[in-house]
């Protein structure tokens, strides 16, 4: 087993045994070497996204946990949020420059749930149209400019 698989195996165990509220790994959609995961998340009660269901796709390289995972929303229901583009890409610093190998799938999911929970108005990012038209398929190939810590 590679060090990436060993680490992900451990994370998977922790996530299935003791999943954080509103987060669950979709074990039917796990790839055999654990390099791709789908995580179901549910908007927290009392927030703008209450009881809405979303899917997050995770992709890991063999350099994980030194390389950050590629994380984006999948499927037909993409949350409308000022930091989430309509193609599923997420503007969140821990996914690129503030990633640390001590973070995990769980901490990424919790950050995304908390980002949804603190949202006060459902609206798309101001540059959504241009970004979605010109960006790479891989959100990690975007040089994100993090300028707003409030949501």
């Amino acid at each position, binding site marked *: 087993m590679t060090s990436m698989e060993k680490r992900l195996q451990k994370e998977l165990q*922790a996530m299935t045994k003791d999943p954080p509220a509103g987060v669950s790994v979709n074990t039917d959609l796990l790839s055999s070497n654990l390099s791709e995961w789908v995580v179901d998340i549910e908007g927290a009660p009392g927030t703008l996204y209450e009881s809405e269901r979303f899917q997050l796709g995770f992709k890991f390289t063999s350099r994980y946990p030194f390389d950050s995972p590629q994380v984006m929303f999948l499927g037909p229901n993409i949350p409308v949020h000022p930091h989430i583009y309509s193609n599923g890409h997420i503007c969140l610093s*821990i996914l690129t420059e503030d990633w*640390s190998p*001590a973070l995990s799938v769980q901490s990424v999911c919790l950050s995304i749930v908390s980002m949804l929970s603190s949202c006060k108005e459902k609206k798309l990012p101001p540059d959504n149209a241009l970004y979605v038209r*010109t960006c790479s398929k891989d959100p990690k190939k975007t*040089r994100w400019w993090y300028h707003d810590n409030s949501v």
Partner: protein
Amino acid sequence: MASEQHAFAYDPEKNYDEDIMAQQRQIEKEIAETQPLVSGLFTFDDIVEEYTSEDAVYRHKIEDLKTRYANMRKTRGDGNCFFRAFGFAFLESLIKDPTDYSRFLELVTKSKDELIALGFPQFTLEDFYDTFIDIVKQVKSPGTVEKLVETFNDQGLSDYFVVYLRLIVSGFLQKKEDEYIHFIDGERTVKQFCSQEVEPMGKESDHIHIVALTKALEVPIRVEYMDREGLTCNAFTFSASDTSDDSLVKPAVSLLYRPGHYDILYPL
């Protein structure tokens, strides 16, 4: 080159991020291919060749270093150089003189539970801790400098070691939040600073990282600053406690700082 630049026309409808990032990856790849994580020994006569004969200030300062240091090792310029240089140099010093080994092992063994108590997730922390302790124990098993060089050039092991040192610094700063909040720029909490500037790999170390690491591990460090000011290097000793007098401290590790980078120095 100039004509290519001249021909470049910026297209606001195009996204250049991918090209720019590909170029950054290429630069990182070149650095990784040409610079070992921790090099063999260099003499100062090798180092002086890095500077042109017109570069009198630097050449003069290398002569100054020669009066106090025998030789040096270089580390890879990947943003982790301070942590890697410190880690290697300190363990190497323990191979040569194991007096401080037991104290150090006890202190770092206790650090795991302290970090978990501070909120670091146990299951990610454990991997880094286990590798870190294995490497520390190599010093006594019995340790050789050759084996240590090999370990520190194995990227998997070496990076795990660096991660754990970063977590120790983060834990120390968070524990002493009241004291260190005044040294953090921007409107950030100590925890935010740590998650942005300490814990991620490749983030360069500043004064505050060095102060925190020396105090957390109680290992004094001397840094020789080599910049364009003055004629000699400025040496600064980071003492391991607030009470000790710099002049009485015998640093366990000596590092050479050249703008943006740390290498390891060996005193005469």
